[in-house]
């Protein structure tokens, strides 16, 4: 309760909550705010002729103007909120899960085993995300190529024409559905969780209530999941809150530079790139640049503020 009062006393926390909640609202009300095109449902709506490569300013059909190819900015922006939440929450959640499991388990079994696990964690820390994205992307491509899947129109930002052979094994069908960027992010972001949780658990392990649980005959799994994890989890919550925003921004970055990932907001900027960098200033075609930028930045700020607020409340050192 005291924590809650502390959290409420800071205006930054309110701002963070307000930002995130408004994104939640937009995501929930997406079909009302911008109904899908019944002929061609999906997060990308074309209004007008698709061969028209000049972005048009706001009009009744496209309240925030259009991109080259007459893609409605407003529609992608609204539906992008859903995909941002889906991506951010699932990646941050899974990353935290992996990191916490590795950190706590290895600290619990301790000594030699822990040294080895932490060495591997450190090794992973020296692996840049971009190399992981390239590697996993390439690996998925190779596996699918070997199975006979061919992709034409090789544009990483838009689904190309895909030629899928009959009788594709189920594992490869699944692989096609999975986003390589997502896997790379999870595989290469769990280390901070593992490191922090490791330190916390090592300290916790020596406390009396864990000793008591062990003396009462509790098994390893019970001690780890019932006693250690709930008590060590708070630093992971803070990290995960910040990661939700961070992962969405990173995904948009990779989409923008053409390395896959299907961030809708990033695609908006990537597609409009030629018009954003135009003589006369970045705001000549403001609807190509501003909406997606604001959505990304505010999404990141919202989660960062919540993370900072939680950190202040939950982290005993700053109390």
């Amino acid at each position, binding site marked *: 309760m005291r924590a809650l009062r502390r959290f409420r006393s800071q205006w930054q926390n309110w701002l963070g909550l307000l930002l995130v909640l408004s994104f939640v609202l937009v995501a929930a009300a997406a079909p009302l705010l911008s109904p899908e095109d019944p002929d061609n449902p999906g997060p990308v709506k074309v209004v007008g002729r698709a061969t028209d490569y000049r972005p048009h300013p706001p009009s009744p059909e496209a309240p925030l103007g259009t991109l080259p190819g007459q893609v409605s900015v407003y529609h992608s922006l609204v539906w992008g909120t859903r995909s941002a939440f889906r991506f951010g929450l699932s990646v941050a959640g899974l990353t935290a899960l992996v990191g916490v499991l590795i950190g706590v388990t290895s600290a619990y079994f301790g000594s030699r085993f822990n040294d080895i696990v932490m*060495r*591997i964690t*450190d*090794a*992973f*820390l*020296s*692996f*840049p*995300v*971009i*190399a*992981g994205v*390239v*590697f*996993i*992307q*390439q*690996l998925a*491509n*190779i*596996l699918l*190529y*070997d199975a006979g899947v061919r*992709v034409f129109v*090789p544009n*990483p930002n838009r689904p*190309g024409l895909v030629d899928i052979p009959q009788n594709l094994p189920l594992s490869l069908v699944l692989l096609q559905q999975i986003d390589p960027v997502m896997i790379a992010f999870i595989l290469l972001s769990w280390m901070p969780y593992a490191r922090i949780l490791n330190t916390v658990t090592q300290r916790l392990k020596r406390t009396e209530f864990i000793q008591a649980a062990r003396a009462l005959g509790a098994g390893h799994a019970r001690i780890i999941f019932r006693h250690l994890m709930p008590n060590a989890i708070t630093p992971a919550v803070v990290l995960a809150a910040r990661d939700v925003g961070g992962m969405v*921004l990173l995904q*948009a*970055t990779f989409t*923008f*530079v*053409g*390395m*896959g990932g299907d961030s809708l907001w990033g695609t908006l*900027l990537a597609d409009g*790139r030629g018009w*954003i*960098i*135009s*003589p*006369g*200033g*970045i705001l000549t075609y403001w609807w190509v*640049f501003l909406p997606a*930028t604001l959505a*990304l*930045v505010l999404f*990141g*700020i919202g989660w*960062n503020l919540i993370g900072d607020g939680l950190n202040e409340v939950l982290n005993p050192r700053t109390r």
Partner: protein
Amino acid sequence: MSPVLRRLLTRILAVPITLLVITAVLYAFVMLTPAETRATLYMPRNLSPRVTEEQIQKLLDQAIERYHLNDPYPVQYAYWISNLVQGNWGYSATLQEDVLSAILRRTPATAELTIYSILVFIPLGLVGGVIAAARQNRLADHGFRFTAFIATSLPPFILALVLISIFYVNLRWFAPERVSTAMGFVVSSDEFRQYTGLLTIDGLLNRRPDVSLDALRHLAMPVFTLAIFHWATLGRVTRAIMIEEFKKEYTVAARARGIPEHKITWRHTLRNAISPALTSSLLSAAALLTGVFVVEIIFSFNGVSMVALRSMQFVPDAPAAMGFAIYSVLIVLILMGLLDLIQAILNPHAQETD
């Protein structure tokens, strides 16, 4: 042995272990692919375009035979890693080039970008954090915190877009890419000798300061984009640590002895704050390199990231992806060593307490 040397040695000894772990994990993933794909890691370069399917099949079979690609994982891994150490990184079909030479040719560009960013963000980050901490809750502190918050919230690619639009398209002060076309001819001519590969330095060594200036003009935007983010993170950490240090007894004692405040801040407190502050940058060396590569792509700076970007075309190119991954890890390890060295030089005594 001096503490600086000892520290450097432990760092260097840790490199092969990290590399072994990483390459083992990478190769474990590669094991998911069929043997014939693994054989492409060893394909010879310069296959004639008239080569027939049967001849390719024969070459693949030979590679499978020669490098034991049907044997269990440890055997294959050993063959592959010993090949790698000998500099055989494979031939990339999409790049039409040996992977290692394609990477090495572009390394100076990446190195130049990275080095200048580090030279900008470390001093400025430390100074910014110290000033903000010394004037806690006053105007300078609020200004710093606000700027740092904006800098960390703005994704680099959006900042890059804004910079290109303002300073390239409209003001024409700076430019993307590595050199302008005219200077490009100078650089590739026979008279221009490549000493270091870094254009800013080579220009001076060749007595062509105009080349150096041109290179700087092209470096300005990417370096700013990269440095501002890391400046903000380092500055925030420095500020937090300095505030903790100000509360400690030795600072209070120094103050009681009547030592001027600025001397306490810069001589006594900062010295203790440098190490933990730089450790945070050390941990994010991988993030720094990711940033470098992203910025290179956005500013069409012809660095190592081009190898990765060009190889991603829905056509299998295992050697390029493997080469890029291993190279990135190597560079991160070198970066960590470099940051560690800076840390050790700035505060040689930190090691003993670690």
